[in-house]
């Protein structure tokens, strides 16, 4: 990679050991993908739940925080994805103390490094959405795909070590979705049906993700009616990223780089797939919403204030016989409390959790501790993840999931 004077100084250690470690890691990654140089970034977002880090990752973070006499600091706004717990609700989840201690050590290390513990995967709804062509280094696939597709910003998937490296160096290797050619559509899909509910938007995203196939594919979808809102795009993108590892999509007439089909090169592509309601229902049928339920979860992505508003309304006057967990960000939670949504949900027997995400919170261990297997949710992303953790996930609308918490079964 071509390095400028600042980058050469970082690599030589002139700016400290932490930036030196960071840029060496970034050069390895950049070389792997043939990056010619670095691009400066304005924000970094770090996925770092301790189930992923384990003891090895936490120790590495602590070592980074001790570098340069404990003075190593990020040089751009650097924020965090959800943590592995909500300390106020850890007993509800029956999370072992050893996991909470890993979380405390991680938080302490991030604070020393100057990282802002926002603990959110919806920073584009709550902290600061990037603007078109803004280069950023975001972790969490749902954050990246939303930033690239809906905001028109530029980011690759940046895993935790790489996102922290970007925070320390203020840059990232210029490859992938930082480059114009990579942002052109590669597969054209015609939608013959427009979803209505969030789980349907998620399921359509899952179908598109499976069809597109891998990270370097850029689907352009035409035929959708109306203007989906931010929450619909959130579920659509998060599921597409989860099922297909997709980082950028275009929706003709909706997303900024595809005002017209030809803007993203879609007019040069044949229609490779047509997706109707039947295809979306077929994906949903892989997670059949029928029978006994052990737990109801709204998470992945964290809920917006509007989703919580809808959920609170559905909870009014009900009494749950099964646990219902609604997960949001620390930025949304205070408003959820102020507007009475938390009270409505918790009066019915549910819980509103903050700053975590269900699948990033030791999902296997809390399943065993609580006897949870049959999990109902409206998140297409989470049903794709939790099978590997031993759950039997069931995908249904928010309304049906709330009914399931009340009746103990989906029907």
């Amino acid at each position, binding site marked *: 990679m071509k390095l400028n004077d600042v980058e050469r100084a970082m690599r030589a250690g002139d700016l400290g050991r932490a930036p030196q470690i960071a840029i060496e890691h970034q050069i390895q990654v950049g070389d792997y993908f043939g990056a010619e140089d670095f691009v400066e970034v304005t924000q970094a977002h770090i996925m770092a739940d301790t189930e*992923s880090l*384990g003891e090895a990752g936490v120790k590495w973070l602590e070592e980074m925080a001790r570098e340069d006499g404990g003075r190593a600091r990020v040089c751009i706004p650097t924020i965090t994805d959800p943590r592995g717990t909500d300390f106020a609700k850890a007993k509800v989840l029956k999370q072992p103390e050893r996991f909470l201690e890993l979380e405390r050590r991680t938080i302490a290390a991030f604070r020393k490094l100057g990282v802002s513990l926002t603990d959110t995967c919806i920073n584009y709804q709550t902290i600061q959405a990037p603007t078109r062509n803004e280069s950023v280094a975001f972790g969490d696939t749902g954050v990246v795909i939303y930033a690239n597709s809906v905001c028109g910003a530029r980011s690759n998937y940046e*895993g935790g070590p*790489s996102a922290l490296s970007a925070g320390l160096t203020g840059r990232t290797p210029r490859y992938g979705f930082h480059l114009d050619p990579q942002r052109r559509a590669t597969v054209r899909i015609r939608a013959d049906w427009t979803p209505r509910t969030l789980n349907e938007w998620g399921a359509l995203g899952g179908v598109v993700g499976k069809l597109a196939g891998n*990270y370097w594919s850029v689907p352009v979808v035409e035929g959708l009616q109306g203007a989906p809102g931010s929450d619909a795009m959130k579920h659509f993108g998060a599921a597409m990223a989860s099922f297909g*590892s997709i980082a950028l999509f275009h929706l003709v007439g909706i997303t900024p780089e595809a005002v017209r089909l030809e803007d993203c090169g879609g007019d040069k592509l044949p229609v490779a797939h047509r997706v109707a309601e039947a295809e979306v229902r077929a994906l949903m049928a892989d997670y059949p919403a029928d029978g006994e339920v052990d737990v109801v979860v709204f998470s992945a992505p964290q809920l917006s204030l509007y989703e919580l508003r809808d959920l609170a309304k559905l909870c009014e006057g009900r009494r749950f016989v099964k646990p219902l967990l609604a997960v949001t960000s620390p930025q949304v939670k205070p408003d959820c409390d102020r507007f009475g949504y938390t009270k409505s949900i918790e009066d019915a027997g549910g819980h509103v959790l903050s700053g975590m995400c269900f699948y990033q919170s030791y999902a296997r261990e809390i399943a065993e501790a609580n006897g949870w297997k049959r999990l109902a949710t409206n998140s297409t992303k989470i049903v794709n993840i939790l099978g*590997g953790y031993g759950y039997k996930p069931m995908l249904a609308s928010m309304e049906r999931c709330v009914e399931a918490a009340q009746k103990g079964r989906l029907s």
Partner: protein
Amino acid sequence: MKELIAKHAIGKPVSGTAMVANDGFSARYDLDRIGGTFSRPTHKLAGQSYVGKVLVLDTAKGGVASAWMLREMASRGIIPLALVFNSVNPILAQGAAFGGVTMLSGFEGEVTAQVPDGARVEIDPSRRILRIL
């Protein structure tokens, strides 16, 4: 002996037994990282141990957690010997760099069809070569 040339390579030379499937890979979605097996019921390698194997798979799936998890798995010795893919996302490249894992990606043709399951293979990342012995 047959040699396959990759477009991208990272890590140290290794040799071992190939475990092959035309399926995706995500450390979070697909693995029981404590037990060292594929745990996603629908994965083509479900129930099989990946420890010490040269995994030959189609592509990276899922999220960003693998960037941390490969190092964590390496720290406990419950990790594949190497990873070989038709294509990877940045997360696996970042995870391989962070975890010191040997990885190749990008081949002429479908790599999972060219490497027999159970074959003895050598990987030389400096030359981007996968050798089927």
